[in-house]
């Protein structure tokens, strides 16, 4: 059974990766899960300087989801290189470094510094964080800006460049197409949806920043629709993200056209979930008599006919 896939020249051993910001730098959970069985680890977003992040409260649970406003708290690229990369280099999985910045120049500076290091296989560019004042969504909801960031980064590296897109736009396919034209090797989506929760007793927003990013199973149907839209618009791989809790969820993303998936919020609840899902996706393909998990990608039967859904009963 073939489980691997490639972005550019980089081969990932399976189609289940862990999403940025939900797996730290890999070392926090090494007692709980064999991280070498992951398709890849996408690191917490890195900026040029360390970022303190937003004041509390940063997390609120909502039905089947969670709102966060972390504000890209991270140790900065230099501390990552000194303290975290040596451990990541020892792992037998692919390391994708996620970069967030508040200016085009900062993206370029961080990536250029990382280019000088060993042990990084690809980059994911976060143009879609809803929780920071500068950069973040103001980049990710501006198609020309998203394209420019991609175009400016493209000449700086031969490694795969994955652009992480926001769902907080009308047509995500336009953004996917724009970054494909600018030379991106893949897109990943969706980042969180802007959301809000209010404490009726105090009449205050529950998050310190008023709004935050919604993730978790609550957003899965939206994510699937956005991934489906993007996958039809571009030829480059689409990495599907959004509320995946099970192998079945992951396979839904593959069927609508995701080349691979990222597990996010579920990692907070069960650090072993991603490895288990990767294994169960393989078993599903086996039972379906496929010789390659990749044969599920885009294999949606779009011929919609009414039949009683078993899972509904």
């Amino acid at each position, binding site marked *: 059974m073939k489980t691997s896939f490639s972005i550019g020249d980089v081969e990932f051993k399976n189609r289940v990766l862990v999403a940025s910001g939900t797996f730290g730098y890999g070392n926090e959970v090494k007692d709980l899960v064999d991280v070498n069985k992951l398709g890849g680890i996408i690191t917490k977003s890195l900026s040029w300087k360390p970022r303190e*992040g937003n004041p509390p409260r*940063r997390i609120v*649970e909502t039905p089947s989801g969670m709102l966060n406003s972390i504000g890209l708290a991270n140790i900065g690229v230099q501390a990552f290189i000194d303290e975290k990369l040596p451990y990541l280099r020892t792992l037998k999985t692919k390391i994708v470094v996620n970069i967030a910045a508040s200016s085009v120049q900062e993206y370029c500076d961080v990536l250029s510094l990382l280019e000088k290091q060993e042990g990084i296989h690809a980059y994911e560019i976060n143009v879609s964080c809803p929780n920071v004042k500068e950069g973040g969504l103001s980049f990710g909801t501006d198609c020309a800006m998203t394209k420019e960031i991609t175009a400016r980064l493209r000449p700086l590296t031969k490694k795969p460049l994955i652009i992480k897109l926001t769902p907080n736009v009308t047509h995500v396919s336009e953004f996917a197409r724009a970054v494909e034209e600018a030379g991106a090797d893949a897109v990943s989506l969706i980042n969180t949806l802007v959301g809000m929760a209010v404490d009726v007793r105090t009449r205050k927003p529950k998050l310190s920043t008023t709004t935050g990013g919604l993730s978790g199973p609550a957003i899965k149907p939206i994510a699937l629709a956005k991934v489906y839209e993007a996958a039809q618009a571009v030829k480059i791989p689409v990495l599907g993200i959004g509320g995946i809790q099970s192998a079945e969820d992951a396979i839904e993303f593959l069927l609508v056209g995701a080349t691979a998936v990222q597990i996010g919020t579920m990692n907070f609840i069960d650090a072993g979930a991603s490895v288990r899902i990767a294994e169960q996706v393989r078993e599903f393909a086996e039972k379906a008599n496929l010789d390659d998990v990749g044969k599920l990608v885009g294999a949606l039967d779009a011929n919609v006919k009414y039949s009683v859904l078993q899972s509904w009963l």
Partner: protein
Amino acid sequence: MIQEIVRVESNQEIAEGLFLLKFDSKNIAANARPGQFVNVRSIHGWSPMLLRRPFSISRIVGISVELLFNVVGGGTRALAAQRPGDSIDVLGPLGVPFRLQDAFDTAVIVAGGLGIAPFPFLTDRLENGEGTILTFFGSRGRFDIDKLHLNSVHYATEDGSRGFKGTVVECLASFLQSHQPAKPKIFACGPNKMLAVLSAFVQTHQLACELSLEGDMACGIGICQGCPVERTKGTKKYALVCTEGPTFDCRDIVLTS
């Protein structure tokens, strides 16, 4: 740190609104120290609740681990509904325990409401030593903790329905006016507002004091970055309650109520 599925041994409302849940775990019982917590997920029965909920380890008897909680929202409502034999998913022990190696002769426990949760465990561990334990417990109205394993409890209620009429910090202050416990160290847990008042009081009187804080956290192990508390010093603005706490020297953190 381990993650395991355990069976609920018992789950009872031991006083109005106060639940005591017990489960067996050799690993957690052997490794946990007072002040640490577990991050718990109810897996029996459907619930729209997603995240684990952090609870102080309230007591350990043999291999039995006890959690004390009240129902404040969906997560604790789901936990209160667990019956003996149901499975819960437990991650722990987590966090930094109370520092018991410091030089102190009198452990002064100061708790507000459900902030009493970590102290039966601390009381157990300190009873074996030489020192004295004093417990100050405050609540708005009647809040029955008689069934908990505690030592020399001084009650304070804001409505005067039991013990001292006033806050627990006022009760402690009044006690210290007439008594001079030998080499005291304060261990406190409760609402942030109470801890802020206590923190100001102990710093004025130069008493050693450790606080156990709550934090809104998703993972409990330092990944989600959800539970910052502001530091008073150092180059980093925030500490994480889950991995650098939940216990802190009161001089090291800024409390906002």
